[in-house]
């Protein structure tokens, strides 16, 4: 259909990737996903802004500098950053039609994501043990809600990655389904970038 329409218009672009005519030549799913990411920026932006506004206004401790463990979190941040690399490799795999590599790197990305969530669970437990909960002070409220939401995003990403991983075995995700992996990758990289912002603003710039 698209070829016929393009011919009629004389100039309209033709899209091969999901076999539907579009005005921009881009897949609609990708455009929708970019708008979603724009929306997510405002979500995390509001949470981060709240953290920054309330920073240093606590009436009781523990305060950030007493409890935040930069070396430990640097390791977990490194783990998450590496998962972006494996995500890129997974996409490269399916673009070349190499399903074995696609599976390998999807699984690697998901496992690195799970490691990150594991670090976070350990950190949260440790903080509660040290006397910092949601209710302790403003730091506790803002910190747990912000990083908790980020952790929830990572968890959703992990579920998404494992879903793609298993679908490669059912034949639903096969060579040529680059877009399914690419969009998951967009989400994954976005969640990574948010972590870079959180890590910098909360852990490094105390």
């Amino acid at each position: 259909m698209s070829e016929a329409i393009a011919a009629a218009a004389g100039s309209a672009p033709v899209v091969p990737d999901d076999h539907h005519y579009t005005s921009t030549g881009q897949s609609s799913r990708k455009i929708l996903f970019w708008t979603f990411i724009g929306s997510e920026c405002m979500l995390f932006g509001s949470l981060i802004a709240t953290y920054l506004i309330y920073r240093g206004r606590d009436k009781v401790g523990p305060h950030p500098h007493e409890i935040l463990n930069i070396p430990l979190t640097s390791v977990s941040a490194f783990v998450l950053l590496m998962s972006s690399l494996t995500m890129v490799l997974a996409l490269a795999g399916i673009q070349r039609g190499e399903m074995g590599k696609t599976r390998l790197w999807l699984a690697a990305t998901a496992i690195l994501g799970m490691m990150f969530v594991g670090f976070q669970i350990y950190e949260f437990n440790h903080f509660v043990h040290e006397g910092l909960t949601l209710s302790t002070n403003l730091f506790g409220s803002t910190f747990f809600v912000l990083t908790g939401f980020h952790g929830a995003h990572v968890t959703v990403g992990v579920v998404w990655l494992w879903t793609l991983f298993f679908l490669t075995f059912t034949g639903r995700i096969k060579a040529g389904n680059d877009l399914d992996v690419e969009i998951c990758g967009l989400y994954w990289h976005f969640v990574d970038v948010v972590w870079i912002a959180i890590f910098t603003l909360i852990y490094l710039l105390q």
Partner: protein
Amino acid sequence: MATTVAAAPAHAAHSQSGLWSWVTTVDHKRIALLYFFTALAFFFIGGLEALIIRLQLSHAGATLISAQTYNAMFTMHATTMIFLALMPMSVAFFNYIIPLQIGARDVAFPRLNAFSYWVFLFGGIFMNLSFLMKMAPDGGWYGYATLTSKTFSPTHSIDFWAVGLQVLGVASLAGAFNFITTIINLRAPGLTFMRLPVFTWMTLVTSFLIILAFPVITVALIMLMFDRLSPAATNFFNVAAGGDPVLWQHLFWVFGHPEVYILILPAMGIISEVLPTFSGKPLFGYAFVVYSGIFIGFMGWGVWSHHMFTVGLGPLGDTFFALATMLIAIPTGVKIFNWIGTMWGGSIRLVTPMWFAIGFISMFIIGGLSGIMHSSPPADTQQNDTYFVVAHIHYVLFGGTMLGLIAGIYYWFPKVTGRYMNETLGQWHFWLTMISMNLTFFPMHFSGLLGMPRRVYTYQKGMGFELYNQMSTAGALLLAVSLLVFLHNLIRSIRKGEVAPSNAWNGATLEWATATSPPPEFNFQKLPTVKTLDPLWHQDGPKGHKIDVGGTDGHGIHMPNPSYWPMFSAFGMTVMMAGLIFGLALGVPGGLLFVYSTYRWALEPAS
């Protein structure tokens, strides 16, 4: 995406009926009708709440309802009108008109579209269920901290409000993602951005406002919900722990002011279609109107603190927001002059949609002028929290948004049903509306400037408020009559209205180019090719280019399959969210249904 391939002529006969076909529909035109009638039902519920408020205020010291019930009435009136009536009514127009105006067969994501509707329906029902549990939200539509804290609102009333708004936010967001993608990516060949109808443009701007503004209220509501958690509540708005209630106001109005433009821009888009059609000439300064709409969209982000002049932000903040607010009046004024310029020298046909469009301009000017009045902090300090503000908001939201939407209903009714609405009843509706809305809302300027506070359930004798309140109450009752006339006209015209041709009003835009009214399920047998603005007015003549939607392009028409998973997914999500109030017994099954349905939806056979 699931598709069926059918030969075009055969597909035309294949129209489904029955309740189940409405539950599973992914057709943008049917979803639009679902949106429309649901929003209309909520509009009448919100109107009933307004009548109860007006009856309680009809005389000094009235005891028709208690102060507590009154609180619930004004909270639910505003919440219902904004989130359950006006916004979804606009979305009904987006749904029906946008794919037609851009020459597409449907929206980019038909099942996501169905999901948006069902989330809206379930969210609206959920919020109104609070009445049955005698826990109706009562903290005002902007739910200021610390009134909404567990200390001052110990029942679930605020929880219903917060969770309900979260659910409705999901519906709005999903819809906005869909419409941005649709408008960017499914325009007919040759339909460049500067050839888009203004209504499509305003839908695009509105959708961007939604996707950027709703996350902010989402975060504010998340904080509120965490603050109300027991036993481990957070301290976001807890003053004792250093929390700042003003943060709520900032977050709310960073969302709330763009929300005002989310409500008005679609109506501005509608009358930018209606006025040229009935003036018989193109919109005056098309590019100016489009850029003004975009500018309003941007500026809408820089004026939120004018809702907070009395908080005490200091002279610098007040000055900035006052200037920004005055600045935003400029593009709005530009649009008004463009609309008047469109009518200037035109061969005007004064039929009902045109009357309502003119009504929109005149009433919106009044609302706009009172808006400029309280852009000045000293004046606003006098007017804040009085009926003057109530008058202003009703002139822009009823006199503006609602009149614009009604103009749209009369204008596109022939496209949706193949019949005209009754003109005599339409005129009655228009004049009754104009008289009654001014009788209702204009006296509020005076009662407000006399110092009558909003949100107080009664007033004392001898304050000078009686006459103005009696006028408002009488006006509200008359307004109810005018709406009954409208309802009668709507129902009557669906069955008995005069039959309309496909281009019922000699319109210029692509929705009037469909072969029939209502359009076939696939809209256009062959996707049109567009070479000008207002394509249907340029079909003939020396440079004419025929808009051809007949025949076939040699391939079958791909239409998406119906699906019930979006509905189950929406239902599961709403029940899961209700679990935030009522515990895991609801939350877990709801969550499981949500996840299961979403997976089934995502894994439905690909094309």
